[in-house]
């Protein structure tokens, strides 16, 4: 009993004892299925079984030669990069103004945070209603403002969607659907990025602000030489998050388009679901979802790098 109590007083022993349950649990519910997913991707396992015949890289090769897979891969990259580009610009602008003191700030903040607080699938259903082809408020408003034909013309002119007609089928035409999904992703990630950007600004010591004033750095110059470098690490964390949560998201595409029309908006998660669950090719489904892995590695390494840099400075 005595030595037992003594051991609990030792930092090292106590630390290991306290951390162990969480680590063991994560190893079981994340580590095991993850290794299993890798194993499955090299087998011809079908729905209803947990193993299969070893087929080497066949699943990866088959997936790669499938046009739908390639489109899913491309869409995943496009959604992720395009939506995060919008998020970065939007968050940089909005956070810049939200740190000011103005009347009605609390209500603005409440409204801005809404998309983040709402469960993703539910807010996506709200978007489904906004983008409905027949009853949508979007088309009704555009028609009343006499902008609908202008938009149809514009979409044709920039070769986004040729041959579109009024009322616009936002989710029924391939490129319009890609656009709509990108906007919904940007919309739902933006509040989180804004909040993190604001935290990043707050972390800049006031001495820096004073010093740059004395040195005569103002406006764009201050933005480029002082604000951007100081906020970069924390802003990048927001971006890396946005990348992971957009690239790995299943709900938004599934709710808005089910991957359609004609598989034109499939992404890796929905395609993995279609192959792995709907068609029951467990092995190939696992292989498809594993194509997300290189992306995650890159993001994780970047995250580690910036976390360390932020520590040093």
């Amino acid at each position: 009993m005595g030595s037992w109590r003594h051991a609990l007083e030792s930092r090292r022993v106590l630390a290991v004892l306290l951390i162990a349950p969480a680590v063991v649990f994560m190893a079981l519910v994340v580590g095991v299925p993850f290794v299993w997913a890798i194993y499955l991707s090299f087998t011809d396992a079908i729905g209803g079984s947990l193993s299969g015949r070893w087929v080497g890289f066949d699943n990866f090769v088959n997936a790669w030669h499938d046009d739908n897979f390639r489109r899913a891969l491309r869409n995943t990259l496009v959604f992720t990069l395009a939506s995060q580009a919008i998020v970065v610009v939007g968050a940089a602008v909005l956070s810049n103004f939200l740190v000011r003191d103005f009347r009605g700030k609390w209500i603005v903040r409440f409204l801005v945070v809404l998309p983040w607080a709402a469960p993703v699938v539910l807010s996506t259903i709200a978007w489904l209603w906004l983008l409905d082809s027949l009853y949508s408020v979007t088309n009704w408003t555009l028609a009343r403002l006499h902008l609908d034909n202008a938009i149809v013309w514009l979409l044709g002119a920039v070769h986004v969607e040729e041959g579109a007609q009024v009322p616009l089928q936002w989710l029924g035409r391939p490129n319009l659907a890609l656009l709509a999904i990108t906007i919904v992703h940007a919309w739902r990630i933006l509040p989180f990025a804004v909040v993190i950007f604001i935290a990043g600004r707050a972390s800049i010591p006031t001495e820096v602000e004073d010093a740059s004033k004395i040195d005569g750095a103002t406006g764009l110059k201050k933005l480029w030489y002082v604000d951007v470098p100081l906020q970069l690490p924390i802003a990048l964390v927001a971006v890396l998050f946005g990348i992971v949560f957009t690239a790995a998201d299943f709900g938004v595409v599934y709710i808005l388009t089910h991957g359609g029309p004609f598989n034109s908006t499939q992404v890796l998660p929905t395609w993995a679901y279609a192959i792995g669950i709907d068609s029951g090719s467990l092995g190939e489904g696992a292989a498809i979802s594993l194509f997300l892995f290189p992306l995650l590695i890159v993001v994780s390494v970047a995250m580690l790098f910036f976390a360390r840099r932020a520590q040093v400075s």
Partner: protein
Amino acid sequence: MTRRERLTTYAVVVPFAIFLAFPFYFALVTMFKTNLDLANVEHSPYLYNDVEGHFHWDFWNYATTEHIRFLFEDTNYPRWLVNTLIVGGAVVGITLLLAMPAGYALARLAGGWGQGAGIAIFLVYLVPPTLLFLPLSRLITQLDLKDSLWALILVYPSFTVPFATWLLMGFFKTIPQELEDAALIDGASRLKALFLIILPISLPGILTVVIFTFSLCVNEFIYAFTFISTSEQRTVSAGIPNDLIRGDVFFWQSLMAAVLIPTIPLALLYNAFLDRFIKGFTGGAFR
């Protein structure tokens, strides 16, 4: 702020707020619409109209709550809300049990490798469910947990534990070490110091973790969607798109009510705890 600065602030902030909140505002309008009003494309979708499409100032006489009644009386929605509360509550409990000791140890006891281990645990949070749902779905079937809330209670901590450990590590770091040292000098054991000194002070932080962990559970879709196929056992995120959208038939008003009812309390809680969340979230790596 000068007058001009104030004007530019509103000119930027208001359009953003409208864009971000519009889907919810429109959901609010829709949930009280009558079928005739909704289905007539000539009628303004922003207002409640009479049969001819005219707006009257006593607009509540042209709106209806029948679709909310439908949602609560003729669908499994109340059941999904209860299921969501059960799963969320159980997962929050498991998560705190595992993450509180780990977060504390990483912040205080682990020394140099604490930071590295903290980031490693955080990276686990980045392993997305879309990578794991295929083997897990087979595993759940094999354990005979398919169509059971237990499947979700077992699997959800896989992303809530790393998330909560990270947040709690951030919170524990903000508590001054001296408080603990004083207790230790006074002869308290480490565990006693933890329970009597650290826990009471970290209560706001722990509450923040409770709320955001719960919200992660409400948000989760692919597991709930894959593991559970009976309507009565679903959570809100999986139940609403499955049961209230039947092929080409959309129960729009009921759908919008179903969307707003969980969203509003979550949004209020987020706003109340946002600053604390950011402190914990960024406190882990950036001080």
